[in-house]
């Protein structure tokens, strides 16, 4: 956006937690000085490092505007999307710490193995199950559609699950993202398998492990009220689904 007015540039120090499985036994911190504009995002900073300083820095990204869920990482100690974190919103008098999300196996630099995350997602049967075969569309009122709107926004970025202190402990907890995906169907008036999903989430690693720490809600880049969704699933597991 530098065309939009005269924007001043300044130097930002990024301290990145690096790890290369082929040469390192332990992760280590490395710092980089980068020329940035206040309208830049952390992702731009990482690109500048990769493109001008050290091509081996590895991270995932695609859309660059918070919609594909590739680049969840820990920025100054909190899970965020690098492409949605503006430099001007950080205190750049101090270095910016960037590291991989926590609780999933570290693969390289900012890249973690997402497979356990998607495994939990798949386990809650995140797809519409309906035996009715309408000639056209299913009938659904505006209110029924609104009931689960919030949880349809999820982009499966894992910012929530990897911010959850319970998930960090042993990685067995289904995690908020999987519960959000279940919620989206449990409260969909067209779905007929809510009880199946509730049974799954009633298990040992299910909703009851949530200790309402709200890290998930705070971390969600889509603004989903994750803890609220989890609370609704808990209530549904106790007294049935009220759509």
């Amino acid at each position, binding site marked *: 956006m530098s065309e939009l007015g005269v924007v001043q540039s300044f130097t930002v120090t990024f301290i990145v937690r690096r790890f290369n499985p082929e040469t390192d036994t332990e992760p280590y911190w490395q710092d980089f000085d980068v020329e940035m504009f206040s309208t830049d995002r952390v992702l731009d900073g990482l690109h500048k490092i990769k493109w001008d300083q050290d091509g081996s820095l590895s991270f995932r990204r695609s859309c660059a505007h918070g919609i594909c869920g590739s680049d969840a990482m820990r920025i100054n100690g909190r899970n965020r999307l690098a492409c949605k974190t503006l430099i001007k919103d950080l205190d750049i008098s101090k270095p910016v710490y960037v590291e991989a999300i926590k609780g999933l196996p570290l693969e390289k630099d900012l890249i973690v193995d997402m497979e356990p995350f998607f495994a939990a997602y798949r386990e809650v049967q995140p797809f519409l199950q309906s035996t009715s075969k309408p000639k056209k569309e299913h009938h659904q009122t505006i209110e029924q559609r609104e009931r689960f709107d919030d949880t349809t926004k999820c982009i499966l970025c894992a910012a929530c699950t990897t911010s959850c202190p*319970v998930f960090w*402990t*042993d990685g067995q907890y289904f995690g908020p993202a999987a519960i959000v995906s279940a919620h989206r169907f449990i409260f969909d008036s067209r779905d007929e398998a809510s009880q199946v999903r509730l*049974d799954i989430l*009633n*298990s*040992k690693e*299910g909703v*009851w*492990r949530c200790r309402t720490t709200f890290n998930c809600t705070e971390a969600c880049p889509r603004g989903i009220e994750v803890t609220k969704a989890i609370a609704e699933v*808990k209530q549904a*597991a*106790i007294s049935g689904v009220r759509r």
Partner: protein
Amino acid sequence: MKTLRLERLGWIFMRLSGVVLIALIFTHLTVNLMQDGGVKAIDFAFVAGKLANPFWQWFDTALLWLALIHGTNGMRVVIQDYVLRPRLRKVLLTLLAVSTVTLIVLGTLVIFTLDPCPAGTPADLLPSFCPAV
């Protein structure tokens, strides 16, 4: 496990017992720490005096059971969160269960079998209602 849904039961119990415990614990604390003399006033005479009253007997029993079960279930969660080595986890959980059962049995026995006026004890240590020796 799946059919019993023990985790759900535990979750509900933590909340129910929590609410009840508030009443019990704060009464307990007020009576024991906040009346005249505070903690300094607690002695055999005080305890035995209280436990001679059936109301306090049942009150303390409820407190004992609820607090222990609530605390134990809480500790179980904590252990399962942080102790990942299966053997050690099992050992700790067993210890937890054993100590809880022991304490509940012991505590309940004490509450209901305490003789407020044991023979051969100087009267100044006993509740005032004890017959003089």
